[in-house]
C-alpha cells in the first residue's frame, strides 16, 4: 500500500447508445474514508456506482482495488472483492423478518434432503450484527414492513456489512426518511468506518454529504468537475460546481 487508496477509478468512460454518461472519470477512495458523490440528476452518479458494483461494465478505463487492477463483470465479482451496494429503493423482502432479510440468499440450513432452516443460529447472528452496529431494533422477529423507514435502511446497511465488505456504496440512503431518522442513518454510516469500511456516499442532500464525508466529488454531465476536501470547501462552492460552468464560476470569484 504505497498511496493508501483502497479503490481507484481511472479514465472511466461509459455511453448508452449516443448518450455519453461518463467521460474520463477519475475517483480515489482512501482506506476508512467516506467520500460524498454529488451531482444534479443524470450527472452520472448512479452509472458510476453501477460500474463499481458490477451492474454495468465501463466502456473504457481501469478499476484498481488495493492498487491492483480488477475486473468487475457482475455483482458477484464485486462481492468477492469486498464491495457491497446499498440501494436507494431498499432491496428487502417486506414480508420477512429481520434475520430472514439479513440472511436472504445464504440462509443457514441443514444438509439433509429437506433443507431445514437453522433459524435460531440466524437469529443469534443477526442480533450480533445489529448489536455491533448499534442498530436499535427491539424485536428482530418483526416483519420488515412494520419497521420505520430508518430501521429498514439500517437493516439494508446491516445486510451489506454482514458480507464483511471493504467498501460500501450507498445510493441516496437518506432519501424518503423522516428528519429524526436521517440523523440515525448518518450516525450509522459514520460508525461503519470503525469497522474498516470505506464508503462512497451518494446524495443530493448536501447537508448529509457534509455531515459524513471527508472529501466531496462533484459530477456534472458525466464529467468529474471538482474534488474538494470537506474542511476546505463550503456548500456554496459545491453547488456552483454542480450547476455552473467553469467560466461562470470564475467570473463570480473575481
Amino acid at each position: 500500500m504505497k498511496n493508501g487508496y483502497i479503490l481507484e477509478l481511472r479514465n472511466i468512460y461509459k455511453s448508452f447508445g449516443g448518450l455519453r454518461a461518463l467521460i474520463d472519470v477519475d475517483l480515489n477512495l482512501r482506506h476508512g474514508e467516506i467520500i460524498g458523490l454529488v451531482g444534479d440528476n443524470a450527472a452520472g452518479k448512479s452509472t458510476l456506482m453501477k460500474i463499481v458494483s458490477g451492474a454495468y461494465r465501463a466502456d473504457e478505463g481501469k478499476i484498481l482495488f488495493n492498487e491492483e487492477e480488477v475486473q468487475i463483470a457482475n455483482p458477484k465479482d464485486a462481492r468477492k472483492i469486498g464491495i457491497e451496494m446499498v440501494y436507494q429503493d431498499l432491496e428487502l423482502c417486506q414480508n420477512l423478518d429481520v434475520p430472514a432479510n439479513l440472511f436472504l440468499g445464504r440462509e443457514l440450513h441443514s444438509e439433509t434432503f429437506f433443507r431445514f432452516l437453522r433459524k435460531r443460529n440466524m437469529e443469534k447472528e443477526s442480533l450480533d450484527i445489529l448489536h455491533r452496529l448499534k442498530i436499535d431494533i427491539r424485536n428482530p422477529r418483526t416483519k420488515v414492513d412494520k419497521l420505520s423507514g430508518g430501521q429498514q435502511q439500517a437493516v439494508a446497511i446491516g445486510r451489506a456489512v454482514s458480507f464483511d465488505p471493504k467498501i460500501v456504496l450507498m445510493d441516496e440512503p437518506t432519501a424518503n426518511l423522516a428528519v429524526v431518522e436521517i440523523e440515525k442513518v448518518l450516525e450509522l454510516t459514520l460508525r461503519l468506518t470503525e469497522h474498516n469500511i470505506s464508503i462512497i456516499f451518494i446524495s443530493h442532500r448536501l447537508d448529509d454529504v457534509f455531515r459524513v464525508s471527508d472529501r466531496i466529488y462533484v459530477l456534472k454531465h458525466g464529467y468529474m468537475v471538482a474534488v474538494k476536501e470537506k474542511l476546505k470547501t463550503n456548500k456554496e462552492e459545491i453547488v456552483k460546481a454542480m450547476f455552473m460552468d467553469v467560466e461562470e464560476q470564475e467570473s463570480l470569484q473575481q
Partner: protein
Amino acid sequence: MGNMGGADLYSPMDRKFKVKEYAIFLILLGIFIVFAFFLRDRGFLSLVNLMNIFRQTAIISIMAVGFTFMLASGEFDLSIGSTVALASLVGALTLQRAGILPAVFAALGVGALIGYANGFFVVKAKMPSFLATIAMMGIIHGLARWITHLQAVPVLNKTFTYIFGGGNIGPIPTLFVWTLVVMVIGQVAMVMTLFGRKVLATGGNVVAARLAGIDTERVKWLLFIVIGMISSLAGLLYTGRLHAARYTYGEQDLFTVVAAVVIGGNSIYGGTGTIVGTVVGSLILGMVNNGLILFGFSVDQQVIFRGIMILIAVALSPKGPKE
C-alpha cells in the same frame, strides 16, 4: 439494550398473544357455536354430519395447500380444477389396464407435465400466470372431455378405493389422513425449510430475492410442477371416493379453493403462506356450506353466500405492497 444474548429473543415479551394470528380459529369456533346452537335439532352436531364436513372439505383443503404455495410465490394457477379431472381419468384408465402403481404414476405424471408446461409459459415465455394457466385450463378441460367422450370410467379395484379416499383406518377416513399429511408437509415446508423461505422471498420481493442470488424462476417452475401433482392427487382421491373417474371433477373447485386460501388469511398479492390458515379457511367454508344446507338454503343460494364470503375475506386480507 445491554444484554443482547440469544436468550433475549425467547423471552415471554416476544410471545405476546396476538389476536390477529388466532382470529381464523376464533371465527371457526364462533361459526361452530352459532350453528351448534341454531341447528341443534337438525343434526349439525351428529358425528355423521361432522365427519361429512371433514370429508367434503378434505379434497378442497389439499388443493388449497398447493394453491397457497403458488400464491405465496406471487403467481396463480387456475388450471388446477381441470388437472383434477384429466388426472382422474388417466389414472382410472391406467388402473383398468395396468394396476394401482402405474395408475398413480400416470396420474401424477399428468399433473407434473401440466405443471411443467405452465411453468414454461410463465417462466420462459414470460406470460402472466393468470392468463397462461387459464388457457391451460381450457386445453386440459377439453382433453378431459375428449379422452373418454364424456363417459365416466368406473373403478372397481377395492384396494385403490380404500387407499384413495374411500376407506377408513379404524374410525378415521383415509381422506382425513391424506389431508393431514399434505397439511403437515405443507406447513413444515413453508415455515421450516429453505424452499419455503425461497418461495416467500420470491413472492415478497422478486427483485430482492434475485439480487440475493435466489433462482426465483426455478422456484416458480418447481411450484407449478408441485401444484400440478397435488391436483393429480386430488383427482385420485375423487376417483377413489366416488368409485369412478369423471371429466366433471374439480370443475367447480377453483372458486372454493381460492376462497379457502383467502379466508385463511393469505394475501392475494403474494408473500404470505399460512398453510394452517388455509385448511381452517377450507373448514370454515365447508361448515358454512353444511349449515346452509341444514338451514334449507338451495345450492344456488350457497354459491351466492360463498361469493360474499370471498369478498369479505379479500376486504379484510393483508393489503398489497406499499407504494
